[in-house]
């Protein structure tokens, strides 16, 4: 299923969270399915192996064996900074570095050449770069909601990446920032949690109008949203961004990987994420890396919905090549 031109399409094992957590599918099953979904495999450290932030020899063996069996390419390893690990204080810069180094080492041990960073390591990035060099890794800040193109934090990260200008540091946009609408499952979930439908619909309108989160929550509270339900609607702002996929062209030299976040497939298309425009921008910009299909939704079978997502991507690639 490798794309005809340009970039390649793979999968993050995070997409199988439902079946994996439910013990329906094992790690080996997930790796086998990755082989049928483009062959590029991305993992999330603390989801897919034990002993995080370290990678054990046992897991190295298990992972590399499966890579061989299913002809996989390790694409990206998801690291975590966990700065709020402790209740009473945040991790110090030294602790952030200490927590990240074994993750870089572990990613390399598994054969990855890319790692996803959370932006919290931004202040200590200069101290991590020597390790990225040592372990031959490109590190990329994930641009995950709320880190849309428009967010000041994203702009700050981009300035740093431009300034440092190292082949070991770049960006990983997550397609959740390219939403055109709030997915149905998120609205259903809010209603299921007992929030009146008119409030849910109003939240969607505020989201569409790009009303900032705090202002929107104040307004929803004044209309009767209970405090205990704030976080449910907060997720609309925390999960779905409204950047324009064309913005990808502005940062093309820094893009080292893409998270093809999607929430559902309806009649062969993703109704809420602007994937055709994402594909157009990537082709136009000459992107040659990987895009991991990343499913985050409810489906009776994650594999089937991932297959449909990749068929859609390949359709757009052919149509725009």
């Amino acid at each position, binding site marked *: 299923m490798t794309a005809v031109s340009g970039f390649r399409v793979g999968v993050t094992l*995070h997409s199988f*969270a*439902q079946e*994996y*957590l*439910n*013990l329906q599918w094992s790690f080996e099953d997930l790796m086998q399915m990755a082989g049928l979904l483009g062959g590029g495999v991305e993992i*999330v*450290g*603390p*989801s*897919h192996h*034990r*002993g*995080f932030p370290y990678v054990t020899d046992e897991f190295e063996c298990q992972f590399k064996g499966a890579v061989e069996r299913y002809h996989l390419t390790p694409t990206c390893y998801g690291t*975590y*900074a*966990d*700065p*709020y*690990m*402790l*209740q009473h204080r945040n991790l110090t810069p030294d602790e952030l570095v200490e927590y990240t180094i074994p993750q870089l080492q572990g990613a390399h041990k598994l054969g990855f050449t890319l790692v996803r960073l*959370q932006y*919290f390591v931004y202040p200590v990035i200069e101290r991590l770069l020597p390790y990225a060099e040592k372990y031959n890794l490109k590190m990329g800040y994930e641009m995950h909601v709320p880190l849309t193109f428009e967010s000041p934090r994203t702009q700050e990260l981009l300035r740093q990446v431009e300034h440092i200008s190292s082949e070991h540091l770049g960006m990983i946009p997550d397609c959740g920032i390219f939403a055109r609408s709030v997915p149905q499952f998120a609205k259903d*979930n809010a209603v299921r949690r007992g929030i009146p439908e008119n409030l849910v619909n109003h939240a969607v309108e505020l989201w569409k109008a790009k009303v900032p989160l705090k202002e929107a929550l104040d307004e929803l509270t004044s209309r009767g949203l209970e405090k205990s339900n704030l*976080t449910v609607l*907060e997720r609309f702002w*925390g999960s779905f961004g409204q950047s324009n996929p064309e913005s990808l062209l502005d940062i093309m030299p820094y893009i080292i990987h893409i998270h093809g976040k999607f929430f559902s497939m309806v009649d062969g298309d993703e109704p809420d994420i602007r994937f055709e425009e994402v594909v157009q921008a990537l082709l136009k910009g000459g992107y040659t890396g990987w895009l991991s299909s990343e499913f985050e939704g*409810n489906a009776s079978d994650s594999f089937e919905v991932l297959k449909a997502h990749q068929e859609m991507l390949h359709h757009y690639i052919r149509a725009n090549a």
Partner: protein
Amino acid sequence: MFDKYMIMETGFCNVFQEQEVIGFQLQARLPYYRGLGLSMVEDIRITVDGNAVPREAIRFTTLGKTYSLEEMETEMVGRWEFGEVATLTINQPGGLSSGQHEIELVEQLRISYLPFPSITKDKKTLAL
């Protein structure tokens, strides 16, 4: 979204010590997509038939180690791994009566990149 997997349908039982019932146990999983250091498990709240269990009465066991919730607050090495079934032991002399009980479990997690804790709830009727 994984709330329904939190309470396991297996492993619900009274705990005996020398023929005396000293409490009861249930098994639980994280409702989250990755494993967490135990210090990120802010709180575990258990309600049985509408009655809240005192926080001090709860013991958490994973990978062969047992912690009080207070001990977990500062535990930076031990982890509740993804998909891992933890045993929650509740010190309650006499345990629970045989028959059905409505168990409610709330797990409050500190998420490294979100400005609010994740609070999820599962409720199941289990039989002793």
